[in-house]
């Protein structure tokens, strides 16, 4: 786990995906899900809590617009009067990763920008989701050369890909709807804390201990 980084999880966002037999996104539907596995079966109460949390988180997404290139122009029109994103609860762009839970990668990610993107993603507080806004963020677009990262999913897990160069605002709203549906059906648990090893010892020492240890 190099220089203080937790391993990046599979591209499912970091909220574990809940097994859904009936309708899945993409190839999940094809895989038969055995409902009888003990650790997957969640009891009635947890399901209600997960549904409530899912509803709350889906309908109040605060976005961090990681704007770099031409998709920024379409992002402006998505945010403004005519194709308003506010109608779906994702109104308020938060320009600090601490208060955002949706990272919208708007525009091309070039190789010099990749450490910046990785750091912003890691500094976002959980629960967090990522939307690749436009073809360049999803797959590098037609900039297939030494300077461009071929899609943000090579660096960070991406939840929703919005195609289009730049995508029409309706496509972005559709992408947001898909993300909200995904969040709604994800399994949200209460109070899960994961601390990286070197921070774990830190916690044991008392306040005075830390003071003296400085």
């Amino acid at each position, binding site marked *: 786990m190099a*220089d*203080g*980084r*937790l391993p990046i999880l599979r591209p499912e966002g*970091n*909220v574990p995906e809940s097994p859904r037999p009936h309708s899945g996104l993409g190839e999940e539907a094809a895989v038969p899900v055995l409902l009888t596995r003990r650790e997957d079966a969640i009891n009635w109460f947890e399901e209600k809590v997960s549904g409530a949390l899912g509803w709350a988180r889906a309908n109040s997404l605060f976005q961090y617009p990681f704007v770099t290139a031409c998709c920024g122009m379409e992002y402006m029109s998505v945010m403004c009067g005519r194709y308003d994103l506010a109608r779906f609860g994702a109104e308020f762009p938060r320009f*600090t*990763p*601490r208060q955002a839970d949706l990272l919208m990668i708007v525009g091309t990610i070039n190789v010099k920008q990749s*450490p*910046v*993107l990785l*750091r*912003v993603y*890691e*500094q976002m*507080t*959980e*629960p967090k989701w990522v939307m690749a806004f436009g073809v360049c963020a999803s797959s590098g677009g037609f900039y297939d050369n030494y300077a461009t990262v071929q899609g943000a999913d090579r660096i960070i897990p991406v939840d929703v890909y919005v195609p289009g160069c730049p995508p029409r605002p309706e496509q972005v709203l559709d992408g947001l709807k898909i993300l909200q549906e995904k969040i709604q059906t994800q399994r*949200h*648990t*209460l*109070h*899960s*804390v*994961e*601390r*990286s090893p*070197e*921070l774990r010892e830190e916690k044991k020492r008392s306040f005075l201990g830390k003071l003296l240890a400085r």
Partner: protein
Amino acid sequence: MDSAYLDPYLPVLILLLLAGLMCLAISFLAGYLGPKRIFPIKETAFECGSPTTGDPHSRHSVKFYLVALLFIVFDIESVFIYPWGALLRDFAAQGLGLFAYVEMLSFMATLALGLVYVWRKGALEWS
């Protein structure tokens, strides 16, 4: 003090209690319930995506604190004027109107003295 005097304040007390409780609950629950993955990179300061440059605890020039102090002084002054303004009509009814008025003038005069001193001393210029 008989209980009749306190009666009107009971709802206010309950209201304050409830409000305080709700604020604490919300902020605590939000912090407690949310999923957390804490690791060193997340603990570092956010500086637009690049590693932090320079040390944040550098010494600032004193004029920032002066402005803050001046603000507090004249803000408190205006805080005292509000209750006085609200009750001025009652004082006048009891015949104390002129006295209350002169009282406030002297209060403001002393503070105006302070303002002139600060102005002459040049603490208001920003450059």
